[in-house]
């Protein structure tokens, strides 16, 4: 079994690395890059939703904050990508901490609503803050990153996002099997028991939320330099819902789930382009169908989903009394 795994991993790596050369089609490589972007976004949101059991409906905003931060630094100050990229993540993390600190003490459903509101506020502020963000005109002409003086080709972007995805997945995998990841899951499973194990609920929730936000910010920074044109409507509520949908469809709380969800939801609309105006109807129908048939998502950890509503509710009222 072990040998088979190594072989499988090796095969997978070879497939992925040679992808731009097996299929030298820029369109498919682009679809692959978009898959990578959303895989990371979904995986990061999964830290919040799947591991820690919190709700966030504003992930797109943090993605956007990262994108705008990096793009503005590159455009206005001509800073290189390798500097603006981490700063995009840092800015998103900063906002994540602020939102987290403000909301995470409240009942978890409020985090969802707050992040939803925050997402919309972010979008509107970007639209209105003309002097900085050029408002609705968007930011065109974001520079292409260079690597030792060589400008990224499409393959360059592909390898960057491939590496990035691999790093994020590996990080989440390690997190999952570490003290910190176990603390996240313990919080998801039972907050009261978790706090009795010495887990600082608020601290770890904030950590999970901030981690997710900073990863989203990093992807945003990458996206800005990849798309080379960003505008506020690319990071609105629809984006947040799309990411959420990927997590839920693929499977909450598993490492593979968000990857699968992102791949399906990015590739599906491409494959079914021939359906023309029926495409989105079918998209909606399939979404409903999959969730009804397999509420945990395609490969989800059932645990996240089997908690009866009643139990969740009892827990809330309990906590409230306890505070």
């Amino acid at each position: 079994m072990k040998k088979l795994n190594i072989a499988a991993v090796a095969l997978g790596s070879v497939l992925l690395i040679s992808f731009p050369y097996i299929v030298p089609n820029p369109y498919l490589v682009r679809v692959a890059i978009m898959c990578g972007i959303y895989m990371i976004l979904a995986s990061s949101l999964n830290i919040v939703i799947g591991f820690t059991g919190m709700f966030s409906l504003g992930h797109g905003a943090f993605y956007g904050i990262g994108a705008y931060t990096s793009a503005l630094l590159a455009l206005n100050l001509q800073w290189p990508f390798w500097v603006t990229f981490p700063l995009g993540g840092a800015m998103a993390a900063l906002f994540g901490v602020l939102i987290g600190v403000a909301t995470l003490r409240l009942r978890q459903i409020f985090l969802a609503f707050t992040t939803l509101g925050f997402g919309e506020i972010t979008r509107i502020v970007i639209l209105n803050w003309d002097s900085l963000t050029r408002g609705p005109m968007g930011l065109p002409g974001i520079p292409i990153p260079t690597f030792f003086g060589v400008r990224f080709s499409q393959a360059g972007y592909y390898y960057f996002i491939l590496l990035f995805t691999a790093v994020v997945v590996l990080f989440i995998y390690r997190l999952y099997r570490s003290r910190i990841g176990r603390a996240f899951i313990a919080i998801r499973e039972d907050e009261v028991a978790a706090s009795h194990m010495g887990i600082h609920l608020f601290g770890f929730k904030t950590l999970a939320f901030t981690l997710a936000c900073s990863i989203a910010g990093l992807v945003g920074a990458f996206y800005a330099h990849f798309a080379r044109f960003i505008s506020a409507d690319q990071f609105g509520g629809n984006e947040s819902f799309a990411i959420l949908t990927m997590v839920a469809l693929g499977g909450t709380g598993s490492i593979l789930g968000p990857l699968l969800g992102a791949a399906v939801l990015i590739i599906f609309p491409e494959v079914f382009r021939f359906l023309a105006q029926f495409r989105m109807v079918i998209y909606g129908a399939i979404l409903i169908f999959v969730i009804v048939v397999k509420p945990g998502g395609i490969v989800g950890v059932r645990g996240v989903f089997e908690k009866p509503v009643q139990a969740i509710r009892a827990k809330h009222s309990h906590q409230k009394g306890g505070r």
Partner: protein
Amino acid sequence: MSKVLKGVLFLALALGMVCSVYAGGKQEKAATDEPVYIALTAPITGDYAEYGNNFKRSVEMAIDKINAGGGVLGRKLAVLVGDSKGDPKESATLAQKWTSDPRIVAQIGDFTSTCCLAAQPIYDQAGMVQLSPTASHTKFAQGSKWSFSIVGTQAGEQPFIADYAYNKLGLRKIAVIHINNDWGVDTARYFTENFKKLGGTITAIENYFDGEKDFTAILTKLRASNPEALFMAAMYNDGASISNQRAKLGWNLPVIGPSSLYSEQLLKLGGDAVNNLYTVVSFFTDDPKPEIQSYVTEFQKRYGLKPNFHASLAYDAMMLLADAMKRAGSFDRDKIREALQATKDFPGLAGSITFTEKGDAIKQYTRVMVKNNKFELFDKR
């Protein structure tokens, strides 16, 4: 089965799916009986579906007409339609799809400037004509030598409208309402600048976001600034809503606005409220010119509705492209671009088209007004 194995299997599956997309669009066999493909990127679903569908109708109609006339250089044309949903990301992905398909020689679209700008770097890099019927963002056409827009920028249209307002209508004090997107901001800015230059006063400026349905608050506020007229930088749907709600507030005054207001929809949705509205057009369905009349009749026959300004632009885009191919004598992407750039006085439905160095069209405008719920030529009076 272990998770890792599952992962690899899934990966293989995903790659397979991706490749099937590839295979789906890849029966390339450049035999001469194969048509020449033009790509159309337009929002077929989503918020802008109405405009995207008009694009599609017009382009299909234009292609049928070209093919009925024997095609271009002996080859038939065909269109591949891609739905961008009005989402810049989809538009960019489609750009990548079109440019990597060797059968496609040029692209028409997208509807919004935002989508066009998002796709621009890809056309630029791959070297394919990106001919947008409607993108009026000042940065669009000048952003790449491959990008062209035939709608004309607001920098070209607004001086004309400002003149209309100031000199023809004798208006001195105008309040402005505009949609807060790239187009609306540009439109309002150029109008305001030009109107002030003529000596007029802008009493107030307010904006609203896409999707807003309630304009009463903004209108009430604008009304308090006591303008003689209202300038409305909006698409015809919003234009009708704004007019309706203005009428409900009992506020009657002349309204003036850009060519995007020109649509039968405006009359249908606005009813009596849109009377006394002044705008300019470069395409006018009542224009007696035979080519316009035949287009309007044909469009109505095929789709059961009157074409509007946006539809006519898409038709022009397709016709212009065919013309450029003929002039280039080739279906080479590069040659098409060169021919397109050299376009001079192409007789489009929406006025003749000449490109500036940057790729913007210089347009001519006609003043119209709404009277008795009908568009009429202003100068005929």
